[in-house]
């Protein structure tokens, strides 16, 4: 009997405490993120990517050690913080994923079409994600530093900004519908204000990330793809111009701020 009473009292206390806890903590993921920072499972993907970088693979049985991410062949430290960037050899603005895809194609003979037409978390596209984890991990604590001087970078940035405000699809949404005011939320999820430099860095610099809710590692390509899904547009093509343009806009806007790479998300 006595035990029962105690149990009831505890239950009552829990009921009273819950709404307060929810209001102050459930809606704030930062504390949880800090707890996880030490054991961010994204590190498992970093390890896989690091091994992939030096493993001879593909029809040409080559490693990626000749891959130039913008700072010279095999220079990985700090490379992600300066991407997207203009690459003279392809005469294109490339983000990390499209650059890796180019290297895999050119050096290893792994056809880009296989990645573009594949699915996230599967096959060669999953390999790209692991490589992304490794490369961004080598820019930990570095400020975002994207060089917008080249005319093609300027144009990509301008197109990204226009795209950010481009309303379309079944629900009339643009990126700006959710990401142009400070302190707003969708349900319990805080939304960065990407029209500000700080907010753009928050958005750009906290992906790629490990998502605790589904135990998956998501690259920025994956993040943007799911943004468009929820925006109710048609499906963006992996590595397509729209993804590069938005990435260039976010990274350029966030210039100078520190990135949290790789991040950890609900």
């Amino acid at each position, binding site marked *: 009997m006595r035990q029962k009473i105690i149990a009831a009292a505890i239950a009552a206390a829990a009921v009273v405490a819950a709404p307060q806890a929810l209001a102050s903590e459930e809606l704030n993921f930062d504390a949880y993120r800090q707890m996880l920072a030490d054991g961010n499972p994204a*590190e498992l993907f970093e*390890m896989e990517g690091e091994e992939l970088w030096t493993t001879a693979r593909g029809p040409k049985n080559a490693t990626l050690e000749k891959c130039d991410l913008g700072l010279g062949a095999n220079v990985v430290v700090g490379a992600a913080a300066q991407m997207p960037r203009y690459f003279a050899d392809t005469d294109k603005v490339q983000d990390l994923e499209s650059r890796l895809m180019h290297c895999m194609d050119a050096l290893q003979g792994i056809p880009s079409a296989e990645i573009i037409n594949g699915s996230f978390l599967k096959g060669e596209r999953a390999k790209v994600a692991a490589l992304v984890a490794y490369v961004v991990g080598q820019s930990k604590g570095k400020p975002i530093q994207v060089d917008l001087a080249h005319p093609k970078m300027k144009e990509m940035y301008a197109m990204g900004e226009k795209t950010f405000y481009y309303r379309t699809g079944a629900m009339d949404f643009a990126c700006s519908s959710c990401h142009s005011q400070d302190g707003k939320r969708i349900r319990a999820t805080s939304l960065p204000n990407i029209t500000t430099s700080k907010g753009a860095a928050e958005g750009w610099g906290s992906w790629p990330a490990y998502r605790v809710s589904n135990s998956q590692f998501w690259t920025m390509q994956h993040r943007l793809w799911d943004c468009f899904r929820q925006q109710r547009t048609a499906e963006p093509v992996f590595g397509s111009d729209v993804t590069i343009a938005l990435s260039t806009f976010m990274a350029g806007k966030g210039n100078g701020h520190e990135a949290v790479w790789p991040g950890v998300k609900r």
Partner: protein
Amino acid sequence: MANPMRIRAAAKEGVTEVRVLMSHVMETGQRKDSSGAAIPAHFITELVAKHNDKVVLNAQFGPSVSTNPYLAFKFNGGAKGDKVTVSWTDNKGESRTDEVQVA
């Protein structure tokens, strides 16, 4: 074959702190796939940590532990250069052992 663990071990004032990140699906057996079929249980059941050859931790794991488990613990003793070995075994009989040197 199972993916490698990420292990870090650091000794300070006679105590060694070990942090382990394991790569494992930790499937509970309670979930269903998109076609409604149960996804078979697949989780770590036992974990053993050794300092050189001496067992310092023996843990029973179950399906309530998250995917890609993270484990941190301390043991008395240990010095720079010592060996820390962590092994796990799962319910399908798969196992993985990784070791690091104490930093």
